């Protein structure tokens, strides 16, 4: 038997490792448009110690190793570009501790968003986390590793800003704790007031270490949640509308979206505003504040609140499954997006670009922006749907997404969960000293270059 396979079996047991064709086929790809590449092995560890031993083995043998959550980032980040081991983290899914008064939770590195959500609902009904709209099986550690955003991002920042501590297996095999948990039993701070080392792992797309435990902040779960949609047919008003709504400091999430179909959505920008409250009075007061904040647009007839009652069951879902339904517009269930982070002021240019690209590449589009930290920035998702059985359409989407990212970066935006081509585009535009610093960090943490190679590869 293959020596490395045997070593992996020795670490995790026979059932948790495979080099069979079925698994190799499956782990060679993600649901996006990046071309597949096969791993040599797939391993599913259960403990930090197992992860550590696998990393030590990979170091000894100089085998690439790619940590994977649910593989849903869509941008090929878990495709093993240079083969080696895909480390499927999903079996490490225990919820280790909830500190109720400290409002944080510690979970293992493969714990899914769905599991934490239902656990909190069952055991801590006053607490919630910032759940993204990704499928419920996606993982919390991966989400912070790519600077994801969730339902509470408008209020509290990127999901990675909510990290309260990390346990990481470094590329050289050492287990390292980051934040207050490096000095004591509590996981309340990822960095402050110490040097904040969490930045060595967050946003690195699994190229600097494997997160085996993560602490994240929890937030009050109000008894009621409601939603309003403000619509305007003027792209140029969106940033101002968002500015006024965020000024109230009364809303949970804000997303802005537009799509040509169904016809009820044609030609309008939809600003979905979520509200929470413990009583009807609280909710109604907030609603009133928001209506008043937007009075001017209503009076000028440029914008107004649409009837939302029939859409509520879909809109109030967490995660919102309706988002995935977009993938089936051209039939064949695929969608891909570029999601640069940029200033809300640039909304009109982005909105225009999405429509241009859709027409140039003859693909179905949807534009969605999620507001970050009270309007400091937005993630602008330029999404295109495709039929998985149509290679030509896939190629058109790939090119459209690439052009969208180029456009965004040229306007001063930064890429979110960039695929390897987008990473290259980003690095081409980066200050050379910043690049040198990134290189220094990577070389020191991963001298053999085994962690998710091909990604954030500074030349």
């Amino acid at each position, binding site marked *: 038997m293959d020596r490395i396979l045997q070593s992996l079996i020795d670490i995790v047991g026979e059932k948790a490792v495979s080099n069979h064709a079925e698994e190799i086929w499956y782990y060679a790809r993600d649901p996006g448009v990046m071309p597949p590449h096969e791993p040599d092995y797939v391993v599913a560890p259960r403990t930090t110690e197992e992860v550590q031993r696998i990393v030590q083995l990979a170091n000894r043998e100089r085998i690439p190793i790619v940590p994977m959550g649910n593989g849903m980032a869509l941008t090929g980040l878990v495709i093993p570009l240079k083969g080696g081991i895909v480390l499927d983290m999903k079996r490490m899914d225990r919820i280790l501790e909830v500190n109720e008064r400290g409002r944080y939770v510690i979970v293992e590195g493969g714990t899914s968003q769905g599991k934490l959500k239902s656990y909190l609902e069952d055991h801590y009904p006053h607490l919630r986390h910032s759940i993204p709209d990704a499928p419920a099986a996606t993982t919390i550690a991966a989400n912070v590793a790519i600077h994801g955003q969730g339902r509470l991002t408008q209020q509290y920042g990127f999901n990675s800003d909510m990290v309260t501590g990390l346990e990481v297996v470094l590329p050289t095999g050492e287990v390292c704790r980051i934040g207050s948990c490096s000095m004591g039993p509590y996981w309340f701070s990822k960095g402050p007031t110490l040097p904040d080392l969490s930045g060595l792992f967050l946003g690195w797309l699994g190229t600097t270490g494997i997160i085996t435990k993560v602490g994240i902040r929890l937030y009050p779960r109000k008894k009621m949640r409601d939603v309003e949609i403000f*619509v305007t*047919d003027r792209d140029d008003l969106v940033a101002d509308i968002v500015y006024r709504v965020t000024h109230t400091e009364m809303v949970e999430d804000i997303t802005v979206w537009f799509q040509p179909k*169904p*016809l009820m959505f044609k030609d*309008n920008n939809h600003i979905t505003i979520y509200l929470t409250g413990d009583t009807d009075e609280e909710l109604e007061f907030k*609603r009133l504040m928001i209506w008043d904040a937007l009075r001017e647009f209503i009076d000028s*007839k*440029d914008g107004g*609140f*649409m009837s939302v009652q029939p859409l509520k069951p879909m809109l109030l879902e967490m995660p919102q499954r309706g988002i995935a339904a977009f993938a089936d517009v051209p039939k064949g269930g695929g969608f891909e997006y570029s999601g640069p982070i940029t200033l809300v002021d640039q909304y009109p240019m982005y909105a225009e670009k999405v429509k241009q690209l859709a027409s140039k590449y003859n693909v179905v589009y949807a534009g969605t922006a999620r507001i970050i930290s009270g309007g400091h920035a937005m993630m602008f998702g330029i999404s295109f749907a495709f039929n998985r059985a149509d290679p030509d359409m896939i190629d058109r989407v790939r090119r459209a997404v690439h052009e969208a990212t180029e456009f965004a970066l040229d306007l001063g935006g930064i890429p979110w969960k960039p695929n390897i081509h987008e990473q290259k585009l980003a690095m081409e535009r980066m200050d050379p000293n910043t690049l040198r610093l990134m290189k220094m960090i990577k070389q020191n943490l991963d001298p053999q270059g085994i962690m998710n190679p091909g990604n954030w590869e500074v030349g």
Partner: protein
Amino acid sequence: MYDLKHDEKVCATCPSADCLLKCQYMEFEQDEAHEEMMKLIRGEDCRVLHECITCYGCEEYCRRGNHPFYLICERREEMGILTAPRPITNQWINMTQMQGKQKVGAVKERVMSFCFLPQLPLMGSGEIFKDLGWSFVFGAEFMCPAVHTHFAKMSVVKERLPQVLENFSELGVKEVICMHDECYGTYTSIAPAYGMEVPFRPIHYMDYLYDRLEELRDRIRLLNIRAVYQRPCSSRLSPQKLHRVGEIFRMIGVELVEREYQGENALCCGEIPRAIAGFRAASDIQRRNIQDMVDAGAQYCVFNCPACQTTLSERVVKFGLKPVHLIELCKMALGEIEMED
């Protein structure tokens, strides 16, 4: 082109100007109301063009055969006055466009029209509608375009309604049971007001319900409940059918409790005023309306229009009332739907 039949001479000699005098959303003295109407007729700018929340009420208040509400809509459109914000107005126009996605069942001479309301197909089932079987139509192609009057888009009504009538005509149907109150109002009020010929006999679903309940009398279990009726804006176009509510209630053992906002004095569900007059105005209408239901001691709030039901259900539940559509209420009496405790 279709022109509104509104006889200005009748207004000129109108002793009451009830149309605007009775309006629940604007205050007028008698002389003012009359003068306002005359300004409207002359095509001058006036208060009503800016303040009317489109409750349809004046169509009912005018007992002299005129069409004050349609005239308001016409004048607003002529003068480019939008009632609701432009994106909302266009949203309604876009989403109700005919796209060839209509559903047509095994149509007989008598057909049920579910308009374009997704709640209605489910209601048109069971013992009451058994004889009609699959004789139904649904979709934008069969939707009464009356909703666009709220947005002062009479041009859309005049463009689409003849097409809807033509679509029915092509099916060769003789009688259309209007499951949506507003369809009945459209065929019996808007169409004649614009001189459009309706190629079938419209039947109000309440008439149909009443007749069927007569036939099924021995199967009715009296419900013994107290209920209020939420009158929709559309019923102002067919006030002659209002009596059916009380008659149907009596047949199935439902006490129609008296309240302030009933009959001519009814308040609308608030959804359209929300878009036109804003949150405060709509909340005020809804609050007064629901408080009135509660004060009247009702257990159930009975809806005629599924759109009102969607708008108000969550709110009435918060006040301890049970929301139910009139058809569902009848099905409860026939034992087809469980009564909630």
